Structure formats: structure tokens, C-alpha cells
């Protein structure tokens, strides 16, 4: 009686990491072959950062360098990773590629990670380049604390990918992503402390804003890179950790919520 699972022990399959790498490499190639995506996600942000020294905006403000890096990171996470995740997942779902990917040895999680990987890598690259740019114009200031901003960057990337996956549930076509991503983008821009400092908001609004998904990311970046708490208070490394506990908690809560929601609502095939 054979016809059972006879996986020969000498024939081990590719590891999880190498399966993800295979698909992520193909996704990167696809991104580079899509001119609109290259301009939007690679060239535009670089031009923006490169232009700032010539525009002379806010150069006299203390903490100009760190602010530039914080803004660069938050903008990359929202505009690049979140937006690209939504459009790519929806495009792959609607052209039935996601369903096909699920018929092989790749797991669903591996497909999602690999599909999102190029955007995340480009975003990390941009943050790095922004840092180098800030150094080049002589505005680099030593961070108060290193771990918090790194946690913010990586956990933030995971969070926006999860929220992007959730957003695909109410996004029918890649084009309609321009509309469906609007709420999160506006919340992230206006209420995260990125464009309007939380300290300048009415206290009640600020407390609500601190519970929104992108706010802890910006808070943690600012604590670590600029040594500044949400209310504008200056902190040292120990103070950054003390003030960082709440945003870390909020971030973890959103990661849990995001993964539950993605598990619940993400669809692999178009609605028929």
C-alpha cells in the first residue's frame, strides 16, 4: 500500500525564507518595470528630500535634521508602503495571481510578505538616504535613543502592510485605492503629530489622536531621534523609554488588531 506521503528525507524543500525571497525578487523586478511605480515610490521622494536644502524651509528651527528624518520615515511608510501594499494586493487579487500563488507550496503569509517586501525595502532605503542627506547638509544630530526609532520603523512597516491588507477588503480595483486609502492617509498626516504637533492640539483631541495607528510610530521616532515627547517636553534616553511605554502599547494593540482584521477580511479571489 503506497500512495501515501513519501517525502524523501533527502529532498527537503526550500526554506520559508528562500521561498519568500524568490517571490520578492520577482515582485521587485515587476516594480522596477512599472515606470509609474518607480517614479512615485523611488524618484519623487528622493527629489523631495534633495530639494529641501534649496528651498530653505525651516532651516533655522532647532532639530531640523531629526525632523526631516522623522518626516521622511513617516511619509515613506504611509505613501509608499501602505499605498503600494493596497494597490499591489488588489491588482494581484483581481488578475487572479494571488489565488494561483496559493496553489503551490507557498503559504498565504509568505505570499503576503513577499508581495509587500519590495515596498518595505525601498522605504527603508529612503529613510537611510534621508539620513545620509541630512548628514550631508550638516544637520545631523545624534539621536537620544536608537532602539525606539528602529522599533517604530520596523513595527510601523508591519502595521501599514497589515492595514493595507485590511484596506483591500473595501478596494475593488487598483485605481479605486486612491479613494479607499484616503481616510488612513489623512489620519496619518493630520492626527499623528507629523504635520500638526500633538502639543498644539486641544488636550482631549491629542489624547484621542495618540490612540490612532500612525501616532505611536511618529511619537517613538520623535522620542528617539529628537529626544522630544508628544507634549513637547525634552527627554533623555531613560525619559524616552518612560514616555515610550504608552505608544509602544498602542502600537502592539494596533498590530494585534490589524492582524486579526486582515485574517478576517482579506480575500484571495475577486468577489464574483
Amino acid at each position, binding site marked *: *500500500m503506497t500512495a501515501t*506521503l513519501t517525502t524523501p528525507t533527502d529532498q527537503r524543500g526550500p526554506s520559508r525564507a528562500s521561498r519568500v*525571497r524568490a517571490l520578492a525578487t*520577482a515582485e521587485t523586478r515587476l516594480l522596477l*518595470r512599472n515606470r509609474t511605480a518607480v517614479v512615485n515610490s523611488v524618484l519623487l521622494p528622493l527629489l523631495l528630500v534633495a530639494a529641501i536644502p534649496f528651498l530653505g524651509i525651516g532651516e533655522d528651527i532647532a532639530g531640523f535634521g531629526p525632523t526631516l528624518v522623522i518626516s521622511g520615515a513617516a511619509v515613506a511608510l504611509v505613501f509608499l508602503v501602505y499605498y503600494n501594499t493596497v494597490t499591489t494586493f488588489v491588482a494581484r487579487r483581481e488578475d487572479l*495571481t494571488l489565488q*494561483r500563488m496559493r*496553489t*503551490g507550496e507557498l*503559504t498565504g503569509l509568505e505570499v503576503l510578505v513577499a508581495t509587500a517586501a519590495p515596498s518595505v525595502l525601498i522605504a527603508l532605503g529612503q529613510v537611510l538616504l534621508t539620513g545620509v542627506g541630512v548628514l550631508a547638509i550638516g544637520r545631523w544630530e545624534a539621536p537620544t535613543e536608537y532602539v525606539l526609532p528602529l522599533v517604530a520603523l520596523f513595527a510601523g512597516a508591519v502595521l501599514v502592510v497589515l492595514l493595507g491588507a485590511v484596506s483591500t477588503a473595501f478596494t475593488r480595483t487598483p485605481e479605486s485605492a486612491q479613494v479607499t486609502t484616503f481616510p488612513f492617509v489623512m489620519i496619518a498626516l493630520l492626527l499623528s503629530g507629523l504635520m500638526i504637533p500633538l502639543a498644539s492640539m486641544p488636550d482631549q483631541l491629542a489624547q484621542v489622536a495618540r490612540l490612532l495607528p500612525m501616532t505611536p510610530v511618529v511619537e517613538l521616532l520623535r522620542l528617539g531621534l529628537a529626544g522630544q515627547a508628544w507634549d513637547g517636553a525634552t527627554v533623555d534616553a531613560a525619559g524616552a523609554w518612560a514616555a515610550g511605554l504608552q505608544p509602544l502599547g498602542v502600537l502592539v494593540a494596533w498590530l494585534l488588531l490589524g492582524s486579526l482584521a486582515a485574517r478576517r477580511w482579506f480575500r484571495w479571489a475577486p468577489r464574483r
Partner: protein
Amino acid sequence: MAVPTAPAPAPAGTARSTAPAVEVVDLQRRYGDFTAVRGISFEVHPGEVFALLGVNGAGKTSALEVLEGLADPDGGSVRVLGADPVAERARVRPHLGVLLQSSGLPGDLTVAETVRTWGRTLTAPRPVDEALDQVGLTGRADVRVRSLSGGERRRLDLALALLGRPSVVVLDEPTTGLDPESRRQVWRLVQDMVAGGAAVVLTTHHLEEAEELADRVAVLKAGQIVLSGTQAEIAETQPATIRFTLDEGAPLPPQPAGVQVVSTAPRVEWHTRALQPVLADLLGWAARHGVVLHALHARAASLEQAFLAVADGTHDAA
């Protein structure tokens, strides 16, 4: 270890030396109030092709999705190589090749890049060249998927489904949209795989395809198997047909017992379950009376006839 499963009785006249590669028992699938698959059972052994036939909406794809591990059954069970295709996905997948009825590929990768990428995710992939050669796409290796014709894309789909040298292959309408030559190429591929010991489950609209490939066939109607067996067994459920045309004024042959007259002179059509004696009587009568039977046609029932009889039943019931 694979969980041993009690083999169901093999069809009459065939000896089975192996356990089934695919075993479906009382499978049910529901979408809300709608029951798409109403308790079907079948099994497929290594080296065998099993064809699921049925009109659109009969439940073929819904049934296959459970075999493919893409959906849980709402009732009954499915074992692929003795394992649950959803719960034991990681063990089943390296042995399973799946061709979905429709699936997509990113248009901006080339054919070779697509195959190479897929291969890197598999346990035991064929070399890219071999995979492309198999489906006749060697000359198209550097063409972007976007530029392929519908038939070429379908063959690329098939190359990916077979890339991991699967021992169980599930093909949902493998040749829909293919030209006759490509279709024959796909048939040869399937036959080669079966000769190599693979178990194949396929659905098709083309009865010719089932006749060419399938060892056993099941006809699905409204989520239930209404006919199943070998092609001969299925054909036997329907009467044979005798047709001929008489000259004007020619005498009419006596009507033998057990014949159902479908049409009379000059273009006669009889249905009978005793083709040989009825035909012998007819020919003897014609010789004795010097009658010419023009365009004489005698044929045992075909799979197509059985299928259409079932489809007509659908029509009557509606």
C-alpha cells in the same frame, strides 16, 4: 505517517494493488443557503485519470477546491495521499499540482522568469528548459507573459502546475480555449504523467477529451453524481443507435422486438439495447429482399449520448 484509509470497493473488473491517491467521501459544500456539492464520493488511484463532467454550475469547481486545499468541506472528507489537504497542507502540497479554471500571472515577467520564480518555491522543481519544452513554449521563453496568446498562457499555467513533478494532479478545464493542436499536446502530457504513475483528476466540457483521457468518469448534476463508472459502463446505460435511409417504394423492414423507433421511412432511426442481434436480423432481411440500406450507421452508445441524456434530464426538471 499517512493515516491508513480503508479502500472502498474497486470498480468491477479492475484489480487495485494500491491505495487511492485521492479519496472523496460524501463531500458537501454550501454557500449560505445554496448547496453546491451534495455529498459526492469518488476515488482516484495512481496511474489513473478521473474526469468530472457536468454543465456549468454543476459543482465541479466547488468540489475541486477542496481537493486543492483551497477550501474546507462543509461535510464529508477529502484525503489526498492519505492526508487532509487543508490541515496537512505542508505535507500534501509538494506532491500536488493544481491548474485552476482561471488564474492570473503578472504580465510584466517573461515566461522563463515566471517559471524560474515558481520553481524556486517548490521542493523538487523541473529545470526551466524541460518545463518549457514540455508545453512547447521554449521559443517564447523571453516573451513577457502579457504578450502571450490565450492558448500560450494556458500552456504556461499547465507548465507551472506540473513544475513540481506532482504525483496528484488536479486540472480544472485544462484545455478550454486551446486550439486543437495544443489540446492534443496537453492530452499527451497528461498521458505521460499517468504513465509515470500520477493520479489525475480533471474537469472538462469536452466529452471528446474525457473519452480520450479518462479511465473513469463521473457526471455531476446539481451537486450530485448521477452517473459514474468506466466509459463502457456509462455508455451501457444508454441504448445503441441504428440509422439507415430507404429508397422510395422500398418495403419496410419488420420491426424487431426490443427496438424503439425514433423515426420511420425513408430515414429510419432505431434505438436498441441488443445491437448485434437486431443488426443481424436487419442485414439478413435486407439481403433476402434485395433492399439497399443507404448510409447505414450502427453505433453503441457513446459517453456523449449518456451525458446529453443526463443534461436533458436537467432541462426537463427545470
